[in-house]
């Protein structure tokens, strides 16, 4: 599998570390909602098809990436810097 890093270009998967499902939402730090924490920590949808996930390009530019990958074919449809994707999702100013 080859991931096309937005900074480094196409690199072999051996340079990357999987950092988990990017679709889950973390409860507020002060939340005592056990169900919400349980979902956040344990529940995964395991879809057959496109999936948003975090990868770390530790063997290159060391940036955290947001990758959309097809779980069946491993075809990657988009790669972005995670910080930009999170900022645009939360509306945070750059």
């Amino acid at each position, binding site marked *: 599998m080859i991931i096309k890093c937005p900074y480094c270009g196409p690199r072999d998967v051996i340079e990357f570390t999987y950092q988990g499902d990017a679709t889950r939402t973390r409860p507020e730090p002060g939340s005592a909602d056990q169900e919400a924490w349980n979902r956040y920590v344990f529940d995964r949808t395991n879809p057959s098809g496109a999936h948003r996930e975090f990868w770390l390009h530790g063997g*290159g530019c060391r*940036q955290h990436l947001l990758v959309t990958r097809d779980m069946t074919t491993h075809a990657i449809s988009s790669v972005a810097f995670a910080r930009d994707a999170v900022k645009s999702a939360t509306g945070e100013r750059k």
Partner: protein
Amino acid sequence: MAEIQSPLGKAYVPGDHGNAAGGVGVTIRERRNLSIIQVTAWSDTIPAVLTAIGSATGLVLQNKAGLGRVAGEKSVFGFAPGRYFIVGATPELELRLRSVIAPDLATIIDLTHGRTVIRVSGPRAEWVLSKLFAIDFSEHAFPIAYGRATLHHDIHTNIQRIDDETFDLYVFRTFARSFWQTLGHAAEEVGYRVE
């Protein structure tokens, strides 16, 4: 100041090695007595840091992935967003950079004692390096003066292309002797010279 010892030690054997019939496919040598400084800009200070690096070294970079410049012993290159190696024979290079880059612009780390620089040169350089690193070494994919951060056998290396057939490899000092031997094995097939 104490003289820096090469970590290559007895593994550094000048002369011709490997396949003599192949001629000298690559020449390898250690670049010594360099200052190696890493500068990391904050996300909103990259243009200002590039200007400051330019005023300290005379090498001005645009903000573009992997871009670098080389002038004699001096070189600069990017290998991650806002992150640069600045290299030169000047012992005061770090002080010179600190005089123009305050902490609100970037962080500065002196890697002089942490990296060993190996120069690989010759008509078979791309071929030999392709055995060690899973990146495209052809000149259209890896232009002159550009930098890369990648791995050999899970160990980090920074690479800068110096000219059409010359590359500088920045490897961890503690792994330098092992890497030097691996590089020799990879180059045996084409014949290599140690200078």
